[in-house]
């Protein structure tokens, strides 16, 4: 298959409940370094999750900052006890906040999600070209076709219901295992698997319909 996954699937197994507990303890002590360490550890996952959940780079950046401001407020208000290392990870805690913020943002603004904001960034274009070179895709037509398919797919992902979209973002786009996703979303692995299957079926159907529409339009 031409467009196989480039890159190695790296699963970061976190046996970091102890380190999460220590970091949470340091956060309770209002250590500035601990807060920055928390940001450095989890900024990417939070940002990418928000980017795919909202479909906008600028909104994702804004909400990523908001997630850590919420944490900062919790520290200052002495409410960091709400996080229990025995019940979940700090990353799951952060992603929970991110999910709520993304939901609120989408409900409040009802803004039209701009596909271009994610798929037309210079970074994305650079990555795409690099991937084309890696896979020896010299044909411009193939590249355009794949790019079009990716756009349709991304639009379909953004149209998914939120609980399906979160699973697709975590398991497919962020390449987390079902176990990790279940821990992050606070549900069972079976739920993750069924949601993933359902989401995959929905995406396939949407892609098929969009392809059919394109063919019909070109025939007419």
């Amino acid at each position, binding site marked *: *298959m031409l*467009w*196989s*996954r*480039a*890159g190695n699937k790296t699963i970061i197994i976190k046996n970091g409940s102890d380190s999460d507990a220590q970091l949470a303890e340091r956060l309770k002590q*209002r250590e*500035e370094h601990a*807060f*920055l360490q928390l*940001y*450095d550890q989890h*900024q*990417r996952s939070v*940002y*990418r999750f928000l*980017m*795919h959940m909202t479909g906008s*780079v600028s909104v*994702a*950046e804004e909400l*990523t*900052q908001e997630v*850590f*401001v919420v944490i*900062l407020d919790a*520290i*200052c208000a002495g409410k960091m006890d709400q996080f229990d290392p025995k019940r979940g990870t700090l990353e799951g805690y952060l992603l929970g906040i991110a999910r709520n913020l993304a939901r609120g943002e989408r409900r409040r603004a009802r803004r039209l999600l701009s596909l271009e904001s*994610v798929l037309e*960034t210079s*970074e*994305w274009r650079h*990555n*795409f070209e690099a*991937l084309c070179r890696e896979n020896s895709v010299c044909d411009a037509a193939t590249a355009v076709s*794949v790019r079009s*398919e*990716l756009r349709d*797919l*991304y639009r379909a*992902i953004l149209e998914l219901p939120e609980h399906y979209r979160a699973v*697709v973002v975590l398991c*497919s*786009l*962020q*390449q987390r295992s079902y176990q990790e996703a279940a821990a992050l979303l606070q549900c069972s692995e079976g739920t993750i698997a069924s949601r993933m299957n359902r989401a*995959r*079926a*929905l*995406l*396939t*159907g949407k*892609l*098929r319909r969009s392809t059919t529409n394109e063919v019909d339009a070109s025939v007419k």
Partner: protein
Amino acid sequence: MLHKRSMKTKPAEVSRVDGLLGLLGELSQHDPSPAVRERLSDLCTQRFQQKRVFIDTQPRIFSWLRVAFVAALLAALGLAAAWVFQLRQPEPKDMRVGNEPVSPSLPIISGKEAHVAPVEHSSVPPSPVNRRSRPKLSPSRSAPEMVIWLPYSNDSVDTGTGATIQVSVSQSELLSLGFPLNATLHDRRVVAELTLGGDGLPRAISLPLPLRLIKEEK
């Protein structure tokens, strides 16, 4: 309908979607702007410094509050102790009539109101009562009573014996001495106690309460 149709997807289509999803994931490895970190760092410094100032001033405020609370507590305890002491202090025993109410039907007679009339069997003319030489009643006597001091001519005679004798007195005599008596006591004599001085003469007449009545002999 949509569910049934979508579940009938071909494995090739599904694997194609999986491939595209993986590709999309690889391509969207974005990172947030470094400006976010700087902003959060500044915000963190600012918030934590504010919190530290608050935390530093908090113990002082608490120490002052603690001192004020202890002072208020001590003052309250002092006031309470004084009040209890005042309550426990025994009331001065005054032997004059009217210090304690004896009966709702009997009005209280104060010392000034108690008019002392001369006693018939007394050969001595009435004279002002020497209050300093009044004998004290025995402390064992706790029953309420009405007491009227009788005039006595010789103040120098010691009257501190406190010897008493019981006598029956007509109600008219008691009325003349100033005892407030009820109208129901007509045709009865009242048992009274005479306090005798060292010379054998009566110094005071008292009515132990409740009154003991004797039918008047004709």
